[in-house]
């Protein structure tokens, strides 16, 4: 068991990779064996993530030096800088790992029945596993170039998956947009990695953080990194790809692409907090992040009102919700240099934002999966063409409503808990921001009420008379997500104390992050 925990960071990344290589081979022999392989490997990853999470919350940061003679030998003997690639898993990373593993597992189970009619499923599951590996690799790595490599893995597999249903006209375009945006963002990231390498001859994040001087070049690199990650996470000035790609992808993949954007958000926070830390002008950068968040909230909410396509509607809502996270963590970043403000409301704001991350992934994932059921059974995504679906799809409509209420911050669901925490702490920073947040939340509620009524209530339209409830496996994955949502909604204090607060502390505590690698 000790050995398993020691090696679990690499196993979490390597097992989906291995399974992906095997999927193509096994898929030729038997479809059933392939499905079993996919689900078993994802369940195993989920198990490892939970085991590792328990260890990290108990014992602190986990280090794994690849190719060295011992996992904790980060720096070669009698030398001063790390040479090899180091995986560095702290509370924040494992928090993102939990999100990625859980949503991917639910999405994979959902796909088993959602994609049953499609051809080329071998490629589909291969790409799905590669997307999982890419996301987890981005989260766990402590090396900037390695981050770029996994960013590209996630981008390419995500684009392939978004374009998977080639019989529709819009899918190739959605995938293409995603790929162009991602590869441009990744190349910009690589350019800034080059800038760091030119100055310090280092690629490890912790070792760089120790020596970084915030020269003019570092400022340029920071600006480029913020632009690149903002582009990739779909923050507002650069959000045009989000609805197109999310609407084009299969429902289960959309939920995973959402997590993938969140992981780019994680990369942004990692850059700001762990790489630069207090050396950067925290107030300026914090306000930039806050403004990005406010714009995302506002534009996302107002554009969602105009949508008639249910998946585009949810996609705009995603932009809006990610604005809340940026707002909350931006507040934490803005007060990073002031210990007093940080303890009174900064950490609370960041815990709220981080708690909102997992909530966001869960309820938007649930909404996308429910929208997928609508498309699967009713054959359309247009809300104006739907009506009265609740008569035949009772459970789906309840789950959709649950996700919608959680998203608009109605008690007792999880969205309410995290949004309340965000409002409270942001109010102390700047009351106007909190008030805007509440208004946006009300708009979100209005959007979902409209969507729910037009899709589910009213007379049963004649063409939907024979619509049936969702297949069992799709139902199972949605129920898994909704149980977690309800649980988080009922016991928010527990989750904040156990998961979100340690994660926020891990982001703030830069010294610990650095010490884990270069402290010896």
């Amino acid at each position: 068991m000790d050995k398993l925990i020691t090696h679990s960071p690499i196993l979490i990344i390597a097992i989906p990779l291995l399974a992906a290589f095997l999927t193509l081979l096994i898929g030729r022999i038997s479809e059933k064996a392939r499905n079993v392989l996919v689900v078993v490997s994802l369940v195993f990853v989920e198990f490892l993530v939970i085991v590792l999470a328990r260890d990290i919350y108990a014992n602190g940061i986990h280090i794994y030096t690849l190719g060295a003679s011992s996992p904790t030998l980060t720096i070669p003997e009698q030398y001063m800088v790390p040479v090899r690639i180091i995986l560095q898993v702290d509370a924040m990373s494992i928090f993102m790992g939990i999100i990625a593993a859980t949503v991917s597992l639910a999405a994979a189970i959902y796909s088993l029945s959602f994609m049953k009619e499609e051809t080329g499923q071998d490629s589909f599951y291969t790409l799905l596993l590669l997307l999982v590996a890419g996301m987890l690799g981005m989260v766990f790595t402590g090396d900037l170039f390695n981050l770029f490599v996994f960013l590209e893995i996630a981008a390419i597999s995500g684009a392939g998956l978004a374009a998977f249903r080639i019989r529709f006209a819009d899918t190739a375009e959605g995938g293409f947009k995603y790929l162009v945006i991602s590869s441009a963002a990744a190349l910009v990231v690589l350019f800034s990695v080059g800038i760091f390498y030119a100055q310090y001859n280092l690629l490890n994040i912790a070792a760089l953080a120790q020596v970084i001087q915030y020269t003019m070049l570092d400022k340029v690199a920071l600006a480029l990194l913020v632009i690149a990650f903002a582009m990739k996470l779909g923050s507002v000035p650069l959000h045009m790809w989000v609805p197109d790609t999310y609407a084009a992808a299969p429902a289960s993949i959309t939920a995973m692409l959402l997590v993938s954007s969140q992981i780019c958000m994680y990369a942004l926070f990692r850059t700001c907090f762990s790489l630069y830390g207090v050396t950067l002008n925290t107030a300026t950068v914090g306000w930039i992040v806050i403004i990005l968040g406010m714009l995302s909230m506002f534009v996302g909410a107002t554009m969602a009102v105009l949508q008639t396509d249910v998946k585009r509607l949810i996609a705009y809502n995603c932009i809006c919700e990610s604005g809340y996270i940026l707002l909350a963590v931006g507040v934490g970043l803005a007060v990073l240099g002031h210990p007093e403000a940080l303890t009174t409301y900064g950490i609370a704001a960041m815990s709220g934002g981080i708690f909102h991350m997992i909530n966001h992934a869960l309820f938007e994932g649930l909404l996308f999966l429910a929208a997928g059921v609508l498309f699967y059974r009713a054959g359309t995504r247009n809300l104006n063409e739907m009506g009265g679906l609740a008569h035949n799809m009772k459970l789906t409509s309840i789950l959709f409503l649950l996700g919608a209420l959680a998203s608009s911050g109605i008690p007792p669901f999880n969205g309410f808990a995290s949004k309340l925490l965000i409002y409270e702490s942001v109010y102390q920073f700047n009351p106007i921001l909190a008030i805007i947040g509440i208004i946006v939340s009300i708009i979100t509620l209005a959007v979902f009420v409209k969507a729910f009524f037009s899709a589910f209530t009213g007379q049963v339209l004649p063409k939907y008379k024979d619509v049936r409830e969702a297949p069992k496996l799709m139902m199972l994955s949605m129920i898994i997500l909704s149980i977690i949502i309800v649980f988080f909604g009922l016991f928010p204090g527990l989750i904040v104390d156990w998961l979100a607060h340690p994660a926020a502390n891990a982001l703030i505590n830069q010294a610990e992050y650095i010490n884990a690698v270069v402290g010896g």
Partner: protein
Amino acid sequence: MTQGIPFNVPFLAVAALIGIAFYIILSQRNLIKLVMGLSILASGVNLFLVTLGYREGGVAPIYTHAPIERMVLPVPQALTLTSIVIAVATLALMLSLIIRIYRHTGSIDSEESRTMKG
């Protein structure tokens, strides 16, 4: 900076390549040209990485029959190798997606082939 501008000419070439690439990406409507822009961007970044490793008077970091022991840095070369393969893989997938778009819409113009509205 101490050696003056002539020493930094390779970096200016990098800046020029990346600038051209961004101009192409932002201004062109033809999808193939867009992909060309991304390809030039990748070349620019690769050139940047590989120039970072050059050491005055160094030889390739290979000990087999090496004439002198002063070698250029090996890590940027490895990074460039990785990034080149990544660029090729992305390029292949992008071109395939363009073929798909062309089959569906009969056009590779980003305004005409648009099937959805913002």
